[in-house]
């Protein structure tokens, strides 16, 4: 083998080794598939899924006039069942004005502050979770479709680094559990692949609806790492990477998880 060919071979082997950690697209599984029959039944039947209560609240919120502009979500967006179809499957998405990706929670709050001239909703507040669940539900069953263009790529890369870099006192990376050891057990609970297909979701442990950022903060806490405040760009980059990693998988919002 000539020297350039050997170098090329080496790079190809190393490249393959680095990529081997990624779960092949066809082998990806939603967290749903790791759940017990009983928990699946809760998600399968809207009348058994407590997140439905929030979705019903959001139908009212969607029509409610807010802020000094006196506008409701419906005044601009009309019927959410048509106007919001597929929207959640594309978030986090690049926002021109901010020059970076924003998640659905931030999108709702931008609408509130700029269009409705109202105060932003607090992260994890009932209203924000209800609205994002409602918007998310309109994309149910649709494939996650994250744009991977020149705008988004640096943030996607930052999210990937966050996913694969070790952090915290336990010196763990997200990938060590969710790429390398999914399907194994962690303290008796199955380790899922970590695809955010159903957020915001009703988590039985929380006994309430919660956002992906809350879930991420949970994981970071478990790794004994310092988390970020809600809405931090690091968390949004990670959300973006996770959604891209789950590209093509169907949206389950609002899901139920143990």
């Amino acid at each position, binding site marked *: 083998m000539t020297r350039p060919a050997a170098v090329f071979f080496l790079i190809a082997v190393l490249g393959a080794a680095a990529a081997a950690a990624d779960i092949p697209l066809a082998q990806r599984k939603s967290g749903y598939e790791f759940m017990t029959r009983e928990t699946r039944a*809760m998600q399968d*039947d809207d*009348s*058994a899924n*407590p997140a*439905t*209560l929030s979705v*019903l*609240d959001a139908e009212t919120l969607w029509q409610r006039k807010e802020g000094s502009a006196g506008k409701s979500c419906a005044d601009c967006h009309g019927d959410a069942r048509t106007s919001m179809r597929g929207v959640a499957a594309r978030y986090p998405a690049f926002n021109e004005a901010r020059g970076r990706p924003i998640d659905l929670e931030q999108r709702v709050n931008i609408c509130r502050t700029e269009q409705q001239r109202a105060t932003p909703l607090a992260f994890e507040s009932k209203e924000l979770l209800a609205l994002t669940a409602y918007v998310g539900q309109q994309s149910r069953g649709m494939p996650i479709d994250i744009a991977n263009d020149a705008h988004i790529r640096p943030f996607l890369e930052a999210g990937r680094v966050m996913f694969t870099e070790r952090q915290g006192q336990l010196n763990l990376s997200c990938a060590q559990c969710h790429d390398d050891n999914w399907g194994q057990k962690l303290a008796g609970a199955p380790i899922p692949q970590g695809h955010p297909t159903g957020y915001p979701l009703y988590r*039985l442990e929380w*006994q*309430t609806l919660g956002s992906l950022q809350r879930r991420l903060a949970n994981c970071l806490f478990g790794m004994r790492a310092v988390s970020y405040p809600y809405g931090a760009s690091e968390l949004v980059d990670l959300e973006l990477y996770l959604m891209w990693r789950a590209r093509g998988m169907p949206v389950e919002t609002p899901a139920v998880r143990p």
Partner: protein
Amino acid sequence: MARALINAPAKAKRGEVIEIKTLISHIMETGFRPDSTGKPVPRDIITEFICKYNGEEIFRAELFPAIAANPFLTFFTVADETGTLNFEWSGDNGFTATQSVNITVE
């Protein structure tokens, strides 16, 4: 007013066994948990649920602190006449919620 969701068939055959599913939004605070300052959070739960079919009680449940938030209760009854199913929840701090659905029996 708490939001409640009832899943019961709108139509049934006479004598048919029907499943009724009820879900209500409630925090079901146990009374055993401390808040961030260490003081116990007072108990706030639903304590009783009653279902009446055309005024006649067909199902009753007592609820306790170990029951999770947003209680989901399902039960069965025999559809014997057209009419109304009334659902009533009551609990701590004067909590009450009612809901009703109609059923047509053929």
